[in-house]
């Protein structure tokens, strides 16, 4: 049994696997299938200052080796999260990353400030949701806005701050450097890639929102490339995600430079994916006689 524990900006994870924000709600639904304690952490559903109803349906479409979603940050608001969901998650043996979002930098900061008095372990600031008209990717695709929203949230919280980056940019490494300079303790990437499908029989987009975020195995090579580029550009830890569906994928993303790995769409295919991925990682490490998963982080040997 290899040592699977990792540390991300001072926070200890017993293993590097974290269900990504949005696929896993607040964890309750999956507890029917496995104890949450098996996970290294949980990135909770993106939460805003007030309740958001989200986008009209359809919000989901299958794509080759992946899917599109346009949920639109439906969530019950930060107060509900703090009163109802967070206390329950904090009884579990795992790191809780509260994923937060907002329409303006000040709103993001206000949400972060509300979490300051809680025992949440980390804040993951979502500046990359492609499915909302204000905030979201509008922050994450503009250098100035990415820096400003990070600065404002940094000023509002002493919690470890992870900024979740959008892949829908020309240079994700440049954005990463800016949010690092603005006070981020870590970055997580990649959020979904903006995509679209059309029903050719009706001429209508499948998603009611017309466009949505693409995820799943199809995006995995892009995630590997971006994690590698960002890990080489910044001095803060990188949490990798994007199409991870096996232990080998998780190992690959860590070799590219990720200190921990989030799992998203794979959970829809196999609800046990996070647990299975951990087992597969352990088997691989044992087969290579690698004592600790930490020993593979960033070890890719580029040509």
């Amino acid at each position, binding site marked *: 049994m290899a040592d699977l524990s990792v540390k991300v900006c001072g926070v200890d994870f017993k293993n590097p696997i974290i269900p990504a924000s949005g696929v896993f709600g607040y964890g309750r639904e999956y507890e*029917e299938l496995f104890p949450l304690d098996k996970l290294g952490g949980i990135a909770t559903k993106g939460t805003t200052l007030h309740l958001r109803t989200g986008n009209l349906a359809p919000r*989901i479409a*299958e794509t080759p080796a*992946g899917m599109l979603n346009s*949920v639109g940050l439906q969530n019950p608001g930060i107060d509900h999260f703090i009163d109802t969901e967070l206390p329950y998650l904090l009884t579990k043996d795992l790191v809780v990353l509260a994923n937060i979002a907002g329409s303006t930098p000040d709103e993001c900061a206000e949400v972060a400030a509300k979490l300051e008095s809680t025992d949440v372990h980390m804040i993951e600031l979502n500046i990359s949701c492609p499915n909302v008209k204000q905030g979201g990717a509008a922050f994450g695709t503009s250098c100035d806005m990415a820096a400003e929203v990070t600065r404002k949230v940094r000023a509002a919280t002493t919690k470890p701050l992870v900024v979740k980056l959008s892949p829908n940019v020309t240079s994700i490494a440049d954005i990463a450097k800016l949010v690092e300079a603005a006070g981020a303790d870590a970055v997580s990437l990649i959020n979904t890639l903006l995509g679209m499908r059309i029903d050719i029989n009706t001429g209508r987009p499948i998603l009611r929102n017309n466009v949505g975020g693409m995820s799943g195995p199809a995006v995995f090579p892009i995630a590997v490339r971006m994690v590698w580029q960002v890990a080489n550009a910044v001095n803060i830890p990188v949490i990798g995600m994007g199409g991870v569906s096996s232990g080998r994928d998780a190992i690959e993303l860590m070799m590219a430079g990720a200190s921990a790995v989030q799992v998203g769409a794979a959970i829809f295919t196999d609800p046990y994916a996070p647990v299975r991925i951990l087992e597969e990682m352990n088997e691989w490490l044992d087969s290579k006689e690698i004592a600790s998963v930490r020993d593979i982080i960033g070890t890719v040997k580029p040509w």
Partner: protein
Amino acid sequence: MKYTQGQYIITEKMAIAREIYSFTISCTEVAAVAAAGQFVHIRANGFTLRRPISICGIDKEKGTLRIVFEIRGEGTAEIAKLNKGDLVDMLAPLGRGFTVDDSFKKVVLVGGGIGTPPMLPLAKIYGERAVAISGFRNSAAAILQDDFKSTGAETILCTDDGSAGIHGFVTQPLTDLAKAGGIDMVYACGPMPMLKGIAAICKENGIRCEISLEERMACGIGACLGCACRTQRNDEEYFAHVCKDGPVFNAEEVLW
């Protein structure tokens, strides 16, 4: 709520109409807790998303479930390739099923097209107290009529082109039954325009009505919030989720 994910053996496969298949699946622990109106979430080999399919039969003694589904696209086509003896990967049973009340003296079950299968478990429960109205495009697309008859339910068949049964929509016989009175509940599943029409008839006649909805779905258990449905609760608009809050909804809750 109690669901599991596993691989289960298909013990019977039948093609019951063009591109419509019936699977009987041996899954004792799922059958033991499954209820009318719930669904199973089936993995399609090579696809990211599972496909939600309503439960058409529950045999707790034999430990089997029956599902009947139509090939709608590549995912369901892949599932249809499975054969007797193959394993099917299911997350099940999911969702909130129909309200069943032993005191009901007369219920009407309305199924349209591939919305017909989830009505069959209700027919089994209510037997002679049920009238099963089924609507199809034509006689070739008509399914499950013998199954409904064998439950003791009265059956009324409608086809759009008049090639079998009543020439017309299911709303015609439903209107007649509603006017005659004595109906405790109408249960329905089918295309949205049909459900909307049924909800209106029930509202007009003061009859309780539950409908089963479908939506493009990802997790199937209420975590991802993909399968949104506009509903109204306590005078407030609320995006409910077909997988967890449904698939069965009180017709008056749904904002069409």
